[in-house]
């Protein structure tokens, strides 16, 4: 058949792949392969269709066949690129392109593709070498710059030893100065050049570039080049010059970038920073300078009027710094300026944030400032007046002393905020429903105060009052995400997770926001998960929130490549940083662990789940995590001396973070590892994609087992007392059972043989790269050594459920969240026991390994656990019924300002939500008891 005819037959395969009909693509490939069994392209396309239909094992076979042929055709390479990406085999992709390029060294496009394959795999050293070679061969400047930035990226890579970094920057420097065209032809090349000079502290050279006309022009139009320039000048100690430059910009160009004002301020006090010869002279000099700066800023204020607040704020900053340096002469100036600032911008929301840094005052000034704030009229006829009042309230609350934070005083405050809120509502009554109400902040102040009251009194009714007032405010200001944020926290504290979820969903969190905001709803979410009953809302929420990580790994690399193509060198390190922060996000893996905890209550615990989760968790354990969670978004209006809103409203009063994640990973990896037959050698053979880089900052000399058993006091401090008890129990359980697991676990060869058998059954091909010994692969192998002596369970294990029973009794009088926390941790402890004892379930295993003594102590623990869990379950279901009674409803007291029917409606919703979660957790426990009786 002619090539044209073959082409014609291949086209429908592409069409099928493009439209996602993988099945018909496979059928079409099979048909063609009958006639052309050796055709690489058809094989590659079939491999792609297989990967896309999740048939990984079958795809692997074809994939390896094609790779062995060392393809060079563009079509095959492109198809294989998608196959390998789908399989996570970036390293193989690099090899494939390198082989192809070696065969056709004059093919520029292949060179570019090989370079990009290395970029995607973060192989900066090879990337640099390829780019250098390409530059020599094809004489294009951009390849030289690719080579330069590859060296820079290698230097920045966490795995590059510090000692080599300077060498790499020097190499980059040598290459960039060898460029036939100067770097200033293009702002991004210039940016790259400057950052290298900055790293190597080659200030004179940088100065020469920056002082040239072209250099100046670039910095005047490119914010990013100007950013590097600023940094360079600062590091070189050119603070005064920078100040003069900034002054000129402010004076002549009307530049109002705050960075310029800061530069002027830094220059003003510079003579005091650089250890002066005599302090007195320096102070005198500084005072003169400060006076000049004051004149400059005052002129700005006069010029700008109310159009721009930079001048006034700069005067404030000047005075604050003068005080810090002991050169302020006017004791009243700071408060004068604060009052003036308030008078001029008090009608803007940001006034509070702007002035907050200046509110730490001496006692006389403090009194004056408070008196000023108290004199702000509390009647208002316009939104401007209202905003002034709100700002005054915020400042007054912010500066409260500990003596003023009592239940009585907070109650009085909350009443005032609520009253003013009601009075202010009519001001916004004409606004469209899409607008925010100007009075919203009063409700946020009230919400903050109710939460403070709840902390002071431990009375949940304060939370309920907060909820009803905030719900009311939301009917007036439908788009206020700030109100929703507080409601989410309040509902979780009230044990009404479904209501929190409703508000979270109404905020339409999407894309990258899942990473920064899903903590609102998913932190310690297994406490509320009803997955055991088959209700998967929260488990699904976990999975949905992790979609963004998939898009990151699929897309961000493409944009790095695009930035190379477009020569946007300033962006490349930023993109790589972004990719890394998402890929190794703390929230990502915290959600992973929460989801695992839910999954184990829902799916039957089998060795398949255990093996898969084990591999994933081990990868996570090797990561350095970045915390991208956004807590600043919560509107905190708490006194300066108090914890902020986030800290006050953390579920169970404990933050979840690196320590929490590390501890739970230790617990589960250790349990799974004991229960699993996969040891490292087996895992290595069965792993399909590339092994992720180990970035965790751990002691490399420690073995994994040592790292799993390590106890970090700082980490343990972040756990609740109940979680801590769980962790101790888990540790004792693992210590106790370890010798029996190690003795019973089949040898690696046997495990591999079994895996090979399964693969062959599934795909018809043997597992590659595994030699199975002819004998000794059977299960019932005889051992040379005697089984370890059976020991009684340690007390931490034997008594754990008894203690839980007592603990459950204790928390009955506490908040619903505490009750659920203890109940779900009891459930988790039982499931962990199931995982740890799974291996010893088959009677044959027990018999062969002579472990009947061990199994009888299991029975004892299991029976004890089940009886406790049964009691907890019954208690929870009883409590759910109790929630529904009208007696209980009376406990919810709303605010007198609100319509009682409205309050009743909120109460009903809270009660229903609580009822649902109590009942669900209770019933779920019941199910687990039956499943693992």
């Amino acid at each position, binding site marked *: 058949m002619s090539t044209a005819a073959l082409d014609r037959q291949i086209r429908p395969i592409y069409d099928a792949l493009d439209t996602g009909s993988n099945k018909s693509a496979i059928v079409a490939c099979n048909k063609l392969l009958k006639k052309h069994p050796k055709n690489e392209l058809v094989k590659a396309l079939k491999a792609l269709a297989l990967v896309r239909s999740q048939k990984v094992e079958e795809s692997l076979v074809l994939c390896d066949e094609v790779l062995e042929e060392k393809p060079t055709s563009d079509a095959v390479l492109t198809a294989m690129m998608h196959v390998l990406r789908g399989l996570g085999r970036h390293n193989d992709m690099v090899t494939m392109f390198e082989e192809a390029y070696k065969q056709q060294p004059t093919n520029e496009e292949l060179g570019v593709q090989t370079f990009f394959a290395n970029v995607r795999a973060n192989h900066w050293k090879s990337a640099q070498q390829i780019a250098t070679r390409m530059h020599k061969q094809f004489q294009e400047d951009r390849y030289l710059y690719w080579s330069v930035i590859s060296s820079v990226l290698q230097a920045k890579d966490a795995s590059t030893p510090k000692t080599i970094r300077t060498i790499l920057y020097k190499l980059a420097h040598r290459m960039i100065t060898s460029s036939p065209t100067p770097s200033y032809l293009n702002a991004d090349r210039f940016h790259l050049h400057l950052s290298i000079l900055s790293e190597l502290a080659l200030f004179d050279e940088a100065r020469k570039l920056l002082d040239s006309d072209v250099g100046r022009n670039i910095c005047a139009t490119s914010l990013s080049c100007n950013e590097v320039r600023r940094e360079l000048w600062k590091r070189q100690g050119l603070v005064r010059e920078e100040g003069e430059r900034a002054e000129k910009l402010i004076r002549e160009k009307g530049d109002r970038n705050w960075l310029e004002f800061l530069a002027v301020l830094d220059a003003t006090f510079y003579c005091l920073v650089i250890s002066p010869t005599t302090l007195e002279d320096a102070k005198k000099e500084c005072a003169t300078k400060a006076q000049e700066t004051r004149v400059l800023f005052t002129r700005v204020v006069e010029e700008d009027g109310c159009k721009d607040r930079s001048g006034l704020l700069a005067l404030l900053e000047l005075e604050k710094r003068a005080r810090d340096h002991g050169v302020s002469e006017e004791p009243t100036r700071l408060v004068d300026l604060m009052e003036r600032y308030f008078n001029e911008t008090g009608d803007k929301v940001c006034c509070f944030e*702007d002035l907050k840094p200046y509110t730490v005052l001496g006692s006389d000034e403090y009194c004056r400032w408070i008196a000023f704030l108290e004199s702000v009229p509390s009647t208002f006829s316009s939104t401007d007046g209202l905003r002034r009042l709100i700002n005054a309230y915020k400042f007054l609350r912010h500066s409260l002393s500990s003596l003023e934070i009592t239940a009585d005083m907070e109650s009085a405050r909350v009443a005032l905020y609520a009253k003013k809120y009601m009075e202010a509502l009519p001001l916004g009554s004409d606004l469209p429903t899409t607008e925010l109400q100007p009075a919203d902040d009063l409700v946020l102040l009230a919400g903050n105060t109710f939460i403070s009251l709840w902390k002071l009194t431990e009375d949940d009714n304060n939370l309920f009052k907060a909820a009803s007032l905030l719900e009311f405010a939301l009917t007036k200001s439908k788009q206020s995400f700030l109100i929703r944020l507080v409601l989410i926290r309040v509902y979780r504290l009230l044990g009404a997770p479904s209501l929190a979820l409703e508000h979270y969903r109404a905020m339409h969190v999407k894309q990258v926001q899942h990473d920064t905001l899903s903590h609102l709803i998913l932190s310690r979410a297994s406490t509320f998960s009803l997955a055991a009953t088959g209700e998967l809302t929260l488990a699904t929420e976990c999975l949905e929130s992790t979609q963004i990580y998939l898009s990151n790994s699929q897309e961000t690399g493409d944009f790095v490549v695009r930035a190379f193509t477009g020569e946007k060198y300033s*962006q490349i390190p930023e993109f790589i940083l972004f990719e890394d922060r998402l890929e190794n996000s703390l929230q990502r893996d915290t959600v992973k662990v929460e989801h695992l905890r839910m999954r184990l209550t829902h799916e039957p615990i089998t060795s398949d789940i255990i093996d898969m989760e084990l591999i994933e968790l081990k990868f996570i354990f090797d990561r350095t995590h970045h915390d991208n969670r*956004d807590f600043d978004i919560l509107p905190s209006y708490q006194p300066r001396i108090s914890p902020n809103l986030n800290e006050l409203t953390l579920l169970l009063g404990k933050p979840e973070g690196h320590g929490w994640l590390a501890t739970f990973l230790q617990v589960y990896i250790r349990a799974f590892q004991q229960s699993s037959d996969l040891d490292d050698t087996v895992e290595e053979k069965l792993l399909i994609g590339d092994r992720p880089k180990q970035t965790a900052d751990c002691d490399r000399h420690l073995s994994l087992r040592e790292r799993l058993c390590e106890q970090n006091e700082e980490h343990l401090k972040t756990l609740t007392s109940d979680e801590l008890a769980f962790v101790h129990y888990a540790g004792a359980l693992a210590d106790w059972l370890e010798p029996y697991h190690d003795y019973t676990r089949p040898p690696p060869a046997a495990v591999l043989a079994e895996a090979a058998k399964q693969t062959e059954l599934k795909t018809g091909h043997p597992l590659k790269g595994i030699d199975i010994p002819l004998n000794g692969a059977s299960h019932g192998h005889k051992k040379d050594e005697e089984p370890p002596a059976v020991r009684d369970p340690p007390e931490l294990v034997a008594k754990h459920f008894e203690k839980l029973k007592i603990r459950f009794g204790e928390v009955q009088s506490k908040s619903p969240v505490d009750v659920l926390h203890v109940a779900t941790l009891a459930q988790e402890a039982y499931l962990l026991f199931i995982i740890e004892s799974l291996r010893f379930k088959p009677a044959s295993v027990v018999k062969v390994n002579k472990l009947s003594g061990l199994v009888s102590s299991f029975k004892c623990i299991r029976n004890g656990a089940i009886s406790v869990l049964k009691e907890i379950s019954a208690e929870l279901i009883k409590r759910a019924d109790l929630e529904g009674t009208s007696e209980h409803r009376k406990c919810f007291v709303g605010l007198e300002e609100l319509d009682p029917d409205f309050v009743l409606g909120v109460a009903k919703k809270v009660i229903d939500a609580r009822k649902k979660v109590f009942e669900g957790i209770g019933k779920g426990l019941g199910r687990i008891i039956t499943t693992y009786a």
Partner: protein
Amino acid sequence: MSVLRPFKASDMFKFNNINLDIWTETYGIGFYLSYLSRWPDLCCVQEAPTGRMMGYVLGKAEGSNAEWHGHVTALTVAPEYRRLSLARRMMALLEMVSDEIYKGFFVDLFVRCTNTVAIDMYEGLGYSVYRRVREYYGSLGIGKGGRDEEDAFDMRKPLSRDPNRRSVRPNGREMIVSAHDVS
């Protein structure tokens, strides 16, 4: 008082106070990265001294021949930082870069016909309506604001390369085109 600096990829972790507002859309990461990988100099952020983001602008350069211009794709300011002339300053930067670096003939943007506050502001900055684009904001039927709700004004401001102001016209509001006639 605010810091004007380049928009960086990691700003996506920080923009919630701006993007949770209903008037600002949060796109997939590819959207932001595609702008940054091509026109990083047309994307900038205004930031408070505390490091909190106040607003940002994303722009691009497009068109051919006399239509070569800078385009404002997204301009947004967090609710708590409105009425502080932040938009004005970000626009000034975008215009300067469109003029001096890209040598465009004009800068343009689309705005909902009902958004009189924004239209007034842009007019104050020297923009004028070039044409009205029908159903630019989706054709979900005519809402409360009538046609104005879904139609957009394409507003333009000539740059130094267009001293004769050929890229604008006085009767733009009457020039009506359909959504697929514009890019």
